[in-house]
């Protein structure tokens, strides 16, 4: 996989908007992706950056959050890395079903379920030294685009 771009931002919420802008304009110029999938990627990236920044908030050393964009013939990957305390993605609490009145007590915990739905694949590498989330979208380069509306996928 070829590294297309690497970006370092301060671990502060105000920078997430620019990460969304960068990832979505890069994805739309380089990959054969429908607008709808670009929106999905934007949201997934935003969720992962929010988590990375919040994780970094829990430690005292100042560190940056790193966003890498990588590509291959058949895929686009966005890697979001933080130096936070890490977590176990398999051990997240399960929410009550939405029809349960208790559901309203959960204002949080929607990020990772959203990420899982929005991208084709997601991988978490988490240690007490930090977490890297890899968001994967399968799609060909923009040049291979087969249909008018950019929905060509491999």
């Amino acid at each position, binding site marked *: 996989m070829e590294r297309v771009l690497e970006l370092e931002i301060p671990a502060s*919420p105000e920078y997430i908007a620019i990460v969304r802008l960068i990832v979505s304009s890069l994805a739309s110029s380089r990959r054969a992706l429908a607008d709808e999938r670009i929106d999905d990627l934007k949201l997934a990236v*935003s*969720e992962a950056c929010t988590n990375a*920044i919040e994780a970094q908030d829990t430690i005292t050393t100042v560190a940056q959050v790193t966003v890498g964009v990588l590509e291959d013939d058949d895929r686009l990957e966005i890697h979001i890395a933080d130096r936070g305390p890490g977590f176990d993605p398999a051990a997240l609490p399960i929410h009550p079903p*939405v029809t349960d009145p208790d559901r*309203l007590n959960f*204002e*949080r915990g*929607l990020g990772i379920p959203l990420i899982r739905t*929005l991208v084709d694949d997601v991988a978490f590498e988490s240690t007490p030294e930090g977490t890297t989330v890899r968001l994967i979208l399968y799609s060909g380069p923009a040049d291979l685009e087969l249909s008018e509306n950019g929905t060509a996928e491999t």
Partner: protein
Amino acid sequence: MELGLEVDESHAPYTVLAVKGEVDVYTAPRLREKLVELVSQGKLKVIVDLEGVDFLDSTGLGVLVGGLKRLRSHDGDLGLVCTQQRILKVFEITGLTKVFEIHDSVDTAVAG
């Protein structure tokens, strides 16, 4: 990046809050404060108009869920106006379409 928050009282007994821009972890606290303020002013029938929202993430959803909970605990309610597919999608994936009443326009929201 500014979050637009405009309150429209011309649909009494409803208060319409029109949100404009991107709702994420950076801007969502302003939306939360505005909802808390409306409740504290006794405005308990709130319609949040999302038609001007370009982006909404789980932090934004969380604030809306929190607002609904707060209003219900005061015997009020919070309805939404949203027709944009990419915003509706976020409610659908998370199952929150079953929690919120989502209307096509402010007019139908205040008529209901």
